[in-house]
């Protein structure tokens, strides 16, 4: 059984790119513990020699399409819905100092 403490919550928040307040951390320790205790039920099932199922679609049933360009250039339309765009580019916060 795993133990979810404040440190775990801090790590998960970081991985999830979320900010959590001190008060929220306490609640999350409690709630995540509860959910993971329930989820731990999977560990009681005998799965010897069982393959993991990643999709319900049986092997090789997924059709493939030609790797061809299907969309015309709609740069302006896509940039128009961005929070910030200038001169045909997305504007993002400085990422290299």
């Amino acid at each position: 059984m795993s133990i979810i403490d404040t440190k775990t919550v801090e790590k998960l928040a970081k991985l999830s790119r979320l900010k959590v307040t001190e008060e929220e951390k306490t609640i999350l320790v409690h709630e995540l513990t509860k959910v993971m205790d329930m989820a731990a039920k999977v560990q009681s099932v005998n799965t010897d020699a069982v393959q993991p199922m990643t999709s319900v679609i049986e092997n090789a049933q997924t059709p493939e399409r030609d790797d061809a360009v299907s969309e015309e250039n709609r740069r302006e339309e896509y940039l128009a819905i961005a929070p910030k765009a200038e001169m045909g580019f997305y504007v993002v916060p400085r990422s290299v100092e």
Partner: protein
Amino acid sequence: MTSLIELSLKEVADKLKNREVTATEVTKACLERIKDRNEQINAYVHLTEDKALDMASQCDKRIKEGNARLIGGVPLGIKDIFCTKGDLTTVCSHILDGFRPPYESTVTENLWKSGAVMLGKTNMDEFAMGSSNETSYYGPARNPWNLDCVPGGSSGGSAAAVADYQCFGATGTDTGGSIRQPAAFNGIVGMKPTYGRCSRYGVIAFASSLDQAGPMARTVEDTALMLRCMSGYDPMDSTSADLAIEAYDEGLADLDLKGLKIGLPKEYFMEGLDPQIADLVKQAVKRFEEQGAEVKEVSLPHTDAAVATYYVVAPAEAAANLSRYDGMRYGLRVEGENLMDTYERTRSEGFGWEVKRRIMIGNYVLSSGYYDAYYTKAQKVRSLISQDFKNAFEDVDVIFAPTTPTTAFKLGENSDDPVQMYMNDVFTLPASLAGLPAISVPAGLVEGMPAGLQIIGKAFEDKKVLQVAYAHEQMCGFELKKPE
């Protein structure tokens, strides 16, 4: 006299074809009903009135020219998870504030090609994560049978809109029960087709290996007709099944019930199931028996691990899918001191509590040290759950089960305890994990509130599931509450 809005989808489609009514009249009647009721029910979060009237007038023109389409002029509600070009599409999340997609989902595109009219976007749990509609950024929709009760979720707005005669049908999506559970709570029909029947292209992703779109309507025939219009192979979704579209609505009464083998999974009649709901399912089974169907007890031995399996697999996929919301290309951006701070502020303000919790659970089960113990393990249990169904279906044609353990609960009743809320999906999750077609059809009332019968079929036997549901509907005689 029956008012226009009370007609079934099929009836209104026929009247439109025969030019007894116009699409504009029908659309206006729905819009009027919505305006009259939305303050109480909150089923719609974004109305598209101008678009609806424009689409209706185009339909009228086509019908006049003799080019009527399958459901030409029929107004529908569209769950706020389907991208419709140029219209607000927000999955009822703050993080997609103002998002108007520059493209159309295949399912809605197919519906428009069949002549349907879009009334607006319906309420839902944020990112389809919830079983009560209470996690919506726009506040919960309410159950038209009792306004103090939830409509279920995540497709709660769609179910409430259909049950309250605010449209003739609505789209839903079902990842773990999100079509069937609200259908059951509102006394309507809702179907999760076989995984792969409906394209996921343009459906905002929650858990991609489980997400499947489906129809919600007041009758089985309407549901079948809608599925015919929504489904089909789509090269834009590599998991969509390359099979011909079936006329699901034709020959619904053709199934011979004599010799039909019905399985009753013994694990589903368990503690926590309202005994009155169990009775309704047993009554339904008895009516089939009287028509010559054979009933057999079957075992789905890994049922009790389904909730745990789902709440590992779905959050893991969600954590990955929702990592795209970074505030850079669309939706909300909350500026921070640097790039990382902007990501964190955007996501913290943009996502609601349930969504944040599931992202963290997902990242937990995917993180090093826990990946094998939870994620891989859950995928193995998923194999066993799927195999359970394969074994059962060697002996039976369809499986009957309750849709939900209880009828609709009161708002706020389950919101303090996530695990208790998750237990609502105990009967719907297994078919989702196995990708099987499953429908919820009204089974009767328990203390004035509707309960659903769930019929689960073999993969791609969607038509048979609909035929069995149709037979049940004819024998059960359930009546939806008339509009006030």
